[in-house]
């Protein structure tokens, strides 16, 4: 094992994950999830976020259809979708996605279709952005493991 390489990768990983927290992509719940991962379940976090991203894609699709026709918007259904999205984003620590959902809910309550469409677009953007960022993070993890190192526990407090 090349300890220099491992140390460098670990440093990179640490810096990257800290930046994700600092930039508000992730919140404390993500670190709670990381606590649940161990050598026996090394893919737990990536599996959960993968489910979350699938959720995002499906819900955004459904909501998009509900919002399609200006004269016939089922705001209840959109609200239900946002509620689910808010819940799961909260459960994985996807902070930006969750925050968009909060505004999104407001738009549903006042039946503001334009507002809803904007939020929908934003939520789509945010989840895809997060997906890319986390993919980079998981890749770094893999590189560390392949180089024979261990993934650092990062204290974000």
């Amino acid at each position, binding site marked *: 094992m090349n300890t220099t390489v491992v140390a460098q990768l670990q440093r990179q990983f640490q810096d990257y994950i800290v930046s994700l927290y600092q930039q508000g992509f992730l919140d404390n719940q993500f670190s709670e999830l990381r606590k*649940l991962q161990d050598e026996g379940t090394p893919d737990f976090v990536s599996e959960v976020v993968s*489910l979350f991203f699938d959720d995002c894609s499906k819900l955004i699709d459904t909501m998009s259809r509900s919002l399609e026709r200006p004269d016939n918007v089922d705001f209840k259904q959109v609200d239900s979708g946002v509620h689910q999205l808010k*819940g799961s984003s*909260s459960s*994985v620590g996807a902070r930006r996605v969750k925050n968009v959902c909060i505004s999104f809910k407001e738009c549903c309550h006042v039946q503001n279709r334009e507002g809803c469409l904007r939020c929908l677009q934003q939520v789509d953007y945010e989840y895809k952005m997060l997906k890319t960022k986390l993919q980079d993070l998981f890749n770094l993890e893999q590189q560390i493991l392949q180089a024979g190192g261990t993934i650092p526990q990062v204290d974000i407090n």
Partner: protein
Amino acid sequence: MALREIASSSSPELHVLAVDDSFVDRKVIERLLKISACKVTTVESGTRALQYLGLDGDNGSSGLKDLKVNLIVTDYSMPGLTGYELLKKIKESSAFREIPVVIMSSENIQPRIEQCMIEGAEDFLLKPVKLADVKRLKELIMRGSEADEGKTKKLSPKRILQNDIDSSPSSSSTSSSSSSHDVSSLDDDIPSSKRIKLESRVND
């Protein structure tokens, strides 16, 4: 026989039934519970939960003698049967009313929480659920079941079974206590008159 053997040979793990319509949340709660050394069954709805417990219209007789659920954790807002409605159904059932039920919700709505506690919920967890929440919960349940040992009124049907009845159709094998406790030790503390009283209450 029989129950002393069963009690000591069965797993000391708590068996938790987790109910949530969100796939993501089910995965998380499952992991939280497993890491806290619990056996976990997850279902996606209140209706499924009732089916699992055998409460879906079959007069409350579970018929599943091996079904031991020590704790039910359920989301509040679910389509179809809400967590609150599920809670009520469980508390209405003679077979399962002793099982602690914990409600989870992403919304911190005081009247909602009170309503659940009044209906007999053991606790209320605000989502997102963390490891510390589950650890605390587990301690609560384990401590609660230890306290049960000394309280005659909280005896589960299982203990009555052991004393006088060979088999009873209404007895569910569920017990709110962890199965690591030696159930048979309780007999000696209970005078027979009390046992009979308990028996009739159970058969209500």
